């Protein structure tokens, strides 16, 4: 973990508030693992005050690091509008990250909206090790405009199953429905596969994923989001109720947790996996 200044060298608008940000000067992030994140802050004065946690999407040679952002509030809007050349401060890499891809396992990567970056990076790592055929991406959003960087996924050779709630692209419905279908498929078609799930996205999605995985006893890794102040385990702000201890910390114990260590709330009224 290092604290350093970096520069935005590219900022690409992807529509619907999504943008991909490339930073230069991030040599310290070179060895980052998929699922790790940084605390990012521009020269913003006091509004916003705290740095913003952002997952890594990809790290490349010569100190480049990519992020996928979505503008939802002032901090991310400032990032969205930032011009190449803008100086930012970076603390990272932070957190634990996902387990390594392996020849003996098959990983179902479940991405909801702007939770996609760590799973993209996981797929990229798999590809670098020649293991991209040991995983596939289930990527869901509200509409086709929430599914971005599809070309980059294709370029990795990654099998991708899209779903949108409005059916504008891919399967109509939630990504969790696609996940159930893919689990069933793999259990029939490839009974020898040791399946794992790695998921990142909105909290309700993560809980739904956990509830789907549980009866199948599939090893399930969830990357959670919590309000963060420090990112390094000192403020104790990002507490998440857990089984192994009353609280775990999203920034320093996570953001990736085994679903079995988290306290998953019971499903709300409506069916978890169905088309809305």
């Amino acid at each position: 973990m290092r604290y350093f200044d970096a520069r935005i060298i590219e900022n690409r608008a992807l529509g619907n508030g999504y943008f991909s940000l490339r930073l230069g000067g991030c040599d310290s992030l070179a060895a980052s693992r998929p699922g790790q994140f940084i605390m990012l802050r521009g020269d913003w004065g006091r509004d916003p005050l705290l740095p913003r946690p952002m997952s890594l999407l990809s790290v490349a040679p010569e100190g480049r690091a990519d992020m996928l952002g979505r503008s939802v509030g002032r901090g991310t809007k400032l990032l969205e509008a930032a011009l190449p050349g803008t100086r930012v401060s970076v603390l990272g890499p932070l957190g634990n990250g996902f387990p390594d891809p392996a020849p003996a396992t098959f990983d179902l990567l479940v991405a909801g909206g702007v939770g996609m970056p760590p799973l993209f990076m996981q797929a990229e790592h798999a590809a670098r090790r020649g293991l991209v055929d040991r995983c596939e991406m289930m990527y869901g959003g509200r509409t086709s405009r929430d599914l971005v960087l599809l070309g980059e996924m294709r370029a990795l050779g990654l099998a991708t199953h899209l779903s949108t709630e409005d059916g504008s692209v891919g399967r109509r419905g939630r990504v969790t429905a696609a996940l159930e279908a893919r689990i069933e498929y793999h259990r029939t078609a490839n009974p020898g596969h040791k399946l794992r799930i790695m998921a990142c996205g909105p909290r309700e999605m993560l809980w739904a994923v956990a509830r789907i995985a549980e009866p199948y006893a599939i090893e399930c890794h969830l990357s959670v989001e919590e309000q963060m102040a420090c990112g390094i385990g000192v403020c104790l702000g990002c507490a998440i109720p857990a089984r192994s201890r009353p609280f775990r910390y999203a920034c320093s114990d996570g953001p990736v947790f085994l679903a079995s260590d988290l306290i998953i709330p019971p499903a709300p009224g409506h069916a978890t996996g169905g088309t809305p």
Partner: protein
Amino acid sequence: MTAPAAGGTEEHAPPSLVARCGGIEFRNPVLTASGTFGYGSEFASLFPLASLGGMVTKGISPNPRFGNPAPRICETASGMLNSIGLENVGLTGFEAEKLPFLRTCGTKVLVNFFGTTFDEYVECGQRLGRMDGVAGLEMNVSCPNIKAGGLEFGRDPRVLGELVRACRNVIEKPLWVKLTPNTSDIVALARACAENGADAVSVINTITGMAIDARTRRPRLATVMGGLSGPAIKPVALRMVYQIHHAGMGIPICGIGGIQNGLDAVEFFLAGATTVQVGTQNFIDPASSERVVREVEEFCRQHGISDVCELVGALEIQG
């Protein structure tokens, strides 16, 4: 000694930053605040901890505590609210897991402590006071998060005085008391500390506040209320430091609240603080506490101040 520079500027000896506050001598007057710097180790890879005047640990209670439900923090205008709930490893956990590192970290360590009863305070203070590597204790009587523990003791000058006295009697090490700003009379609280043997007061802890998410109709903190910190509270903190200093009871003051840089620290010195603590800013810029030290030194150089102590209480008020 080098020859005077071309422009005729003379070389000055570097300013002295040594600060004596509440029975402890610090390399410089910049400490880090309880609950915002962990137990130091997390920052050790960012800068040498020995560059700090000192550091104050997360609040320790006799028994470990798990803290409040989530969400525990949220951002507000130039500030943040927290309701961590005094989560900590407890006395023995602290001694076994944290103290060994702290003994080697090269800076003065104050241990922030509290109890949920009068007796717990006394017990906790006494046991911590005997531990090796602890330069002093900072008694937290002001945390607004826990009903039974914090606010009640620190709110009433009489109760506070008794608590300070009881702890003083069993603690040989320097004893600082951290005051709550949720009061109509900060001077009365400081006086209760001074008269009952406290070595210094730390001013201020967080101000009780609250935030609401209008869309969900829910409070942003699980505990509804929490403690406000950060630049937003600096004017209140400065005012309270000034009021205590101005009351002239002579108790040293450690100034806390919204310090972001060296100029902020100097403002606290001018208001009457002998030392300062950097809190929330550690989250905004994790290298800031060391930077504050450098900026204070730089300020002294630029203003021809040979000893940082000259700044303490040196506010100039016009007739």
